């Protein structure tokens, strides 16, 4: 029986790890997206007392290694009375961490947003909220699409760190099989294949979205 046959027999473990990774990834990027958009909206405000802490939060996330944030949420929060299980700690850490990155990406585009369009919106009676959600945000997203695609890939790769806080996902499956049967190379080659498949699928989707924005003159596919 070759090493590959062993892994084939254990495919159920890979499969459940794969689904778990997809679930964690899917949920956390939706969370990150919402956090990123919310931060961008709050940063629209002119009151420094609100925007300063947000800027500090974003910068703090960007200087913090992801693993440390995951540790903090899983091992640190219980000491202040908040106990999340490993799975939710992981999803939460990913969402918050990449949400800050999303916000930073959005902000870069927001800073170069044509002021004339804002004036046109004001002149047509738009108030701040409607202007943001109808006119600013859609354009910021279209504009930053390639950067968002990159960030999603980072987020996918960061899911693998969660094995350290005992989340059973794809890397955890490979870890467990490699140590049970002492076949690390083959086991990890298999998970590379899975990560690669997710990345490629994501890249295709992001690229397809590019047609939508290219039609509106935002970038080239």
């Amino acid at each position, binding site marked *: 029986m070759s090493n590959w046959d062993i892994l084939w027999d254990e495919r159920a473990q890979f499969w459940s790890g794969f689904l778990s990774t997809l679930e964690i990834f899917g949920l956390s990027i939706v969370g990150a997206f919402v956090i990123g958009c919310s931060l961008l909206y709050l940063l629209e405000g002119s009151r420094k007392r609100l925007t300063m802490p947000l800027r500090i939060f974003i910068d703090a996330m960007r200087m913090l290694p992801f693993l440390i944030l995951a540790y903090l949420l899983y091992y640190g929060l219980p000491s202040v009375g908040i106990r999340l299980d490993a799975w939710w700690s992981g999803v939460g850490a990913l969402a918050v961490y990449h949400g800050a990155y999303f916000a930073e990406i959005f902000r870069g585009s927001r800073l170069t947003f044509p002021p004339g369009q804002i004036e046109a919106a004001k002149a047509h*009676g738009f108030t701040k909220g409607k202007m943001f959600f109808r006119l600013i945000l859609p*354009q910021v997203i279209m504009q930053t699409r390639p950067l968002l695609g990159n960030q999603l890939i980072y987020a996918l790769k960061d899911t693998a760190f969660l094995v350290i806080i005992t989340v059973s996902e794809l890397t955890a499956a490979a870890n467990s099989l490699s140590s049970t049967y002492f076949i690390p190379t083959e086991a990890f080659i298999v998970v590379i294949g899975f990560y690669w498949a997710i990345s490629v699928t994501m890249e295709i989707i992001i690229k397809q979205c590019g047609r939508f924005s290219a039609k509106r003159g935002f970038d080239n596919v």
Partner: protein
Amino acid sequence: MSEANTSETAAVSIRHLSKSFDDVEVLRDVELEVKTGEVVTIIGSSGSGKSTLLRCINWLEKPDRGSIHIAGQRIGVHDDGRPMPVRELAKVRAKTGMVFQGFNLWPHLNVLHNVTEAPIHVQGKSKREAEELATALLEKVGMSHKHDSYPNTLSGGQKQRVAIARALAMQPAVMLFDEPTSALDPELVGEVLAVIKDLSAEGYTMVMVTHEMAFARAVSDQVVFLEKGLIIERADPETFFTSPKTDRVRKFLENHDNPSPA
């Protein structure tokens, strides 16, 4: 109460308007009354304050002193000096339709949706109602064939015509034009001016900043000349262009190829 009475009949009524940027006074005690159905052209050299005056009308610039009424309603501040809450300001603003030098269309929306955006999401019109109105307006500006195109595929003249339809869709009490043809290639100016001329013939109330003297002469009911923030001359177009009262205007018109009567 006399102020309220006069402003009731006027589409725009500007009283004692002053505005400074840092130490520079750009508007000094400007008074202007635009009656419903009237076309007023603001002329002046660059830096004279004419764009600022126009932009004060819908509060894109905040004047330091004075009052502005749009169709009888004060914009920006209440009579007791309280600043207007944003929602209320937005409502008064929506009574004006503004056309910018740089078009400022929303690039992620197609032509039709640029025109229906504010009627649906600001005025709360139904989608159907807004689209019917938009279709009619795009027809009026000769852009209905492009209703599903995106702004990036349009020429400057086409963009400006869509921008005019977008402003008209608010069914405003007054249309404000801020140098609507200054960013256009010379051969595209005509199509935009033709649209504005049609609007004036249809009785739309308009205030326009322009450098197109022949056009100003042809469409205006009142021409206002601004110099260093002061209105130094105002007259009907014939008087203004044929027998200006001040040397300043005479000189300005000489430099601008004073047009012969159309």
